């Protein structure tokens, strides 16, 4: 057993050691390890620390540790652990004296803390240098540093306790990094990276969710808006329907009134005007219905009808509808249909009308105060192929010629127009590019030509675009919304046709369109179209002379007359007309000449009188019967005031004035009147019916006034009645005492002596007397002319038709009253009651 002991802290050089002083006890080192061989023979009790240690060790029998002190040789700080060696086993509860007694030696070990630490930690140190501080912390408030440099606070500190085996002493080891640990870039980066990634992912999710939410929102909004738009559309349709209904109601009132007007007394021309107004009103109502159809067009659900209709009548009515506006502006309008176009075609007349009305309406709108609007219809075949065009209008239309002397052109009004062939030069149908040429179909080419302001070149591309007008000021100046042409285009396309135009600003515009129609039979026409059939033939074979300096215009007039079966000659001036007339005096042509139509442009009062006298002279020369009718002279005019018209009529220069645009119905009415086919006023059915009611009836007229009697008698005789007149009530009594042969009695109310009331009362009482007798069988029926019940209809004649009088009349037995002087309608109504029942 070796004991090791270390000496004091301060100076421990072995050579410098003094021999130990004399003491009671010594503890010299006898044995030692090689490494600490320098402490051999040093008295361990010489150091204070060691002494305490030894004493404590021997007292407690346990290992004891010194506080840190500098070791001898190395001068490192260290601690010594000392054990006491006993010579016998001591019981655990042995007192210190016993222990001291038993001590034979000591065992000691020194811990060189630095080398211990360095050797131990060598393995533990990481790349960073670890700073280790070892403390003796037996005294907690004053730790003794055993190893380690000054503390550099680098943050992380690990404290571990060291147990050298002495419970009395506490030791701690503080480990810390010498340098601050560098920022753990990897970790930081990684975590930042992860964070960023997480953030990004989170952001993506967030964004996605937001987007979804937004899209959903948008979708909801859109649904809402869509619902609103649909509601607006529905509202628009409802509005249209309501407004149209609102318009329809007063329109129906207008139409009703017109119908009532037509039931009154009108002459032929007035009747025609009323009928035209009525037809226009009906057209307006159908136009309103068409407005409601626009919705169909816009939604593409439009379908065309397939009915037979008369093209010429349709065009007449279209032009007459717009004639007011064009006449007011001083624009001449005319329609011409080629002979080759059949009478009846099958298609949709309403839509056809719509297109032409739109084009004509535009022409009127954009033509100011001069010139013309000319609608012409030809077969497409007339244009194609053959170079020689048979139709005169077409000929002239294709060749615009200017008359140098009068600076006018060979057009309807003399004003220049654009070349019409330019409006159809791009049509496939006409260029023969149209492959399928269905022979069953009739292909028509309709042209609307005007001398208006024209369309600006830069606006020409857009005119078929809906809601776009030539320029922004158009709507302001001319009105309109700009849909008409686009609808027309759509309709034309539905008819398998094409639409095009040519226009030059300052000259005018010409629109053309084609369409395919089916062939139709005359008999298949709806009654609405067949108005003129029976009448037409009555002018058949008559001849007419047209005097007009514009040849196209003359052709138009000729076209209308030919429709009535009248054969026509044309001259261009009054003088040549006179020559012509003289030349045909001896021919049958003159006999057939029923009318001469003179256009206002060539009208010259003196020359017309000349013509008239020429005709009359001829009649006298031929010693013809006075009643042989001379040809009637008509003036054709465009815009004339009614005053002017009636002046001309009453002046006797002309038999009538015909307003353009010419319409078949007007022509027929005028010709009928002029040629004496009907008697003056067209009374309607009333006159004939009154006559049939009163014919051969025996009527008694009672009036004290001679004039009244005579007038009443004359009026009743007109209807074929047999009239007897008496002056006094008494005479009436006598006449009407049964039996008599009178069928009715007209009684004046105010008469001297016995007035109408009294007379009637007495007549009635006489009648009832007789009736009673007959009923009771007192007298035989043969005595009273086989009439079993006597009641003669007595009608009061009075100028005074108040309710009181009427009631009084009824009270005394009268049946009715009529006003004085007679009014036909009232008379008819009153008389019809009695005679219709076959009294």
């Amino acid at each position, binding site marked *: 057993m070796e004991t090791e002991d270390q000496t004091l802290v301060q100076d421990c050089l072995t050579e410098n050691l003094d021999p130990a002083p004399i003491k009671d006890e010594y503890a010299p080192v006898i044995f030692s390890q090689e490494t600490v061989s320098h402490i051999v023979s040093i008295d361990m009790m010489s150091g204070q620390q060691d002494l305490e240690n030894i004493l404590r060790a021997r007292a407690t029998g346990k290992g004891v540790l010194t506080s840190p002190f500098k070791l001898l040789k190395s001068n490192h700080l260290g601690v010594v652990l000392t054990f006491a060696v006993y010579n016998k086993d001591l019981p655990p509860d042995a007192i210190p004296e016993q222990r001291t007694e038993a001590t034979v030696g000591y065992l000691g070990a020194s811990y060189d803390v630095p080398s211990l630490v360095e050797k131990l930690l060598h393995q533990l140190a990481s790349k960073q240098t670890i700073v280790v501080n070892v403390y003796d912390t037996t005294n907690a408030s004053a730790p003794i540093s055993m190893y380690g440099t000054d503390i550099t606070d680098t943050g992380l500190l690990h404290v571990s306790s060291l147990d050298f085996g002495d419970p009395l002493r506490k030791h701690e080891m503080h480990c810390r990094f010498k340098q601050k640990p560098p920022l753990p870039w990897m970790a930081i980066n990684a975590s930042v990276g992860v964070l960023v990634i997480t953030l990004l992912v989170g952001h993506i999710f967030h964004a996605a969710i937001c987007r979804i939410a937004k899209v959903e929102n948008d979708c909801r909004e859109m649904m809402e808006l869509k619902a609103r738009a649909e509601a607006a559309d529905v509202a628009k349709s409802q509005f249209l329907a309501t407004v149209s209904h609102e318009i329809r109601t007063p329109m129906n009132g207008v139409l009703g009134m017109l119908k009532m007007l037509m039931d009154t007394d009108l*002459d032929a021309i007035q009747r025609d005007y009323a009928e035209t107004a009525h037809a226009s009103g009906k057209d307006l109502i159908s136009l309103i219905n068409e407005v409601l159809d626009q919705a169909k067009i816009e939604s593409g659900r439009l379908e065309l009808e397939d009915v037979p209709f008369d093209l010429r009548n349709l065009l007449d009515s279209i032009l007459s509808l717009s004639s007011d506006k064009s006449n007011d502006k001083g624009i001449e309008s005319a329609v011409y249909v080629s002979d080759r176009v059949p009478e009846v075609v099958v298609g949709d007349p309403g839509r056809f009308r719509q297109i032409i009305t739109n084009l004509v309406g535009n022409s009127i709108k954009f033509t100011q105060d001069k010139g013309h609007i000319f609608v012409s219809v030809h077969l497409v075949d007339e244009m194609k192929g053959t170079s020689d065009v048979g139709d005169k209008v077409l000929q002239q239309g294709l060749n615009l010629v200017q008359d140098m002397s009068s600076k006018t052109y060979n057009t309807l009004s003399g004003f220049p127009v654009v070349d019409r062939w330019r409006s159809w030069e791009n049509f496939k149908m006409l260029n023969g590019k149209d492959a399928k040429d269905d022979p069953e179909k009739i292909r028509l080419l309709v042209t609307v030509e005007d001398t208006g302001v024209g369309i600006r070149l830069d606006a020409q591309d857009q005119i078929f675009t809906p809601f776009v007008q030539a320029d922004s000021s158009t709507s302001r100046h001319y009105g309109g919304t700009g849909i008409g042409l686009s609808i027309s285009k759509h309709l034309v396309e539905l008819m398998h046709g094409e639409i095009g135009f040519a226009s030059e600003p300052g000259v005018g515009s010409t629109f053309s369109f084609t369409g395919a129609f089916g062939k139709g039979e005359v008999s298949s026409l709806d009654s609405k179209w067949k108005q003129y059939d029976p009448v037409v033939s009555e002018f058949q074979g008559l001849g007419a002379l047209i005097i007009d300096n514009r040849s196209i215009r003359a052709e138009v007039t000729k076209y209308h007359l030919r429709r009535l079966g009248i054969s026509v000659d044309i001259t261009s001036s009054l003088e040549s007309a006179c020559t012509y007339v003289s030349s045909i005096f001896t021919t049958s042509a003159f006999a057939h000449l029923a009318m001469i139509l003179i256009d206002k442009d060539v009208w010259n009062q003196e020359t017309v009188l000349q013509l008239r006298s020429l005709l*009359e002279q001829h009649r*006298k020369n031929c010693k013809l019967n*006075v009643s042989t009718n001379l040809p009637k002279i008509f003036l054709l005019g465009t815009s004339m005031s009614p005053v002017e018209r009636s002046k001309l009529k*009453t002046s*006797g220069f002309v038999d009538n004035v015909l307003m353009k645009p010419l319409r078949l119905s007007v022509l027929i009415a005028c010709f009928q009147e002029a040629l004496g086919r009907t008697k*003056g*006023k067209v009374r309607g059915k009333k006159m004939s019916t009154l006559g049939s009611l009163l014919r051969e009836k025996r009527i008694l007229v009672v009036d*004290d*006034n*001679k*004039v*009244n009697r*005579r*007038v*009443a008698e*004359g*009026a009743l*005789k*007109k209807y074929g009645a047999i009239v007897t007149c008496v002056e006094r009530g008494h005479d009436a009594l006598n006449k009407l005492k049964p039996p008599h042969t009178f069928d009715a009695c007209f009684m004046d109310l*105010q008469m*001297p002596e016995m007035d109408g009331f009294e007379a009637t009362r007495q007549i009635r009482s006489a009648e009832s007397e007789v009736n009673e007798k007959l009923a009771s069988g007192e007298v035989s029926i043969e005595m009273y002319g086989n009439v079993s019940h006597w009641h003669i209809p007595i009608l009061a004649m009075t*100028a005074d038709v108040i309710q009181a009088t009427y009631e009084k009349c009824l009270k005394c037995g009268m049946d009715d009253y009529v006003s*004085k*002087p007679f009014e036909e309608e009232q008379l008819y109504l009153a008389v019809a009651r009695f005679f219709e029942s076959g009294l």
Partner: protein
Amino acid sequence: MDVVNQLQRQFIDYSASLHREGFLDDQFTQLQKLQDDNSPDFVVEVASLFFEDCEKLINNMARALEQQQGVDFKQVDASVHQLKGSSSSIGAMRVKDVCIAFRSFCEAQNREGCLRCLQQVTHEYSLLKNKLQTLFRLQQQILAAGGSIPVVE
């Protein structure tokens, strides 16, 4: 032939002026229409009856109104009523209008007013008589010249 036309034109113009000035109204036109081959002088006949009647009634009224010891307005009224009736039968519009005014004066028993009206009636009657006579003369002239009397609308 020219003469006939001229006369006819004159007739038309004169007729129109009578209508325009209110001497005749539509009823007269109706009477003219009643005239036909069966009764070729219908209008002249009725007119003559009217003139007779007028004169008689005017005399009655004058006499009645002259009565110093109280005018019998009832009688006057009866005569006026008659006159009104016959003038409306023939279409003598101005005469009829005066009669209407006359009647109200009778009802009011206004002698002065009645006398004034009587004067007016007489005046209108004589005017109308002259006018109609001119018209009828024209008609005869036309017929004599071989023309037909134009129907005025």
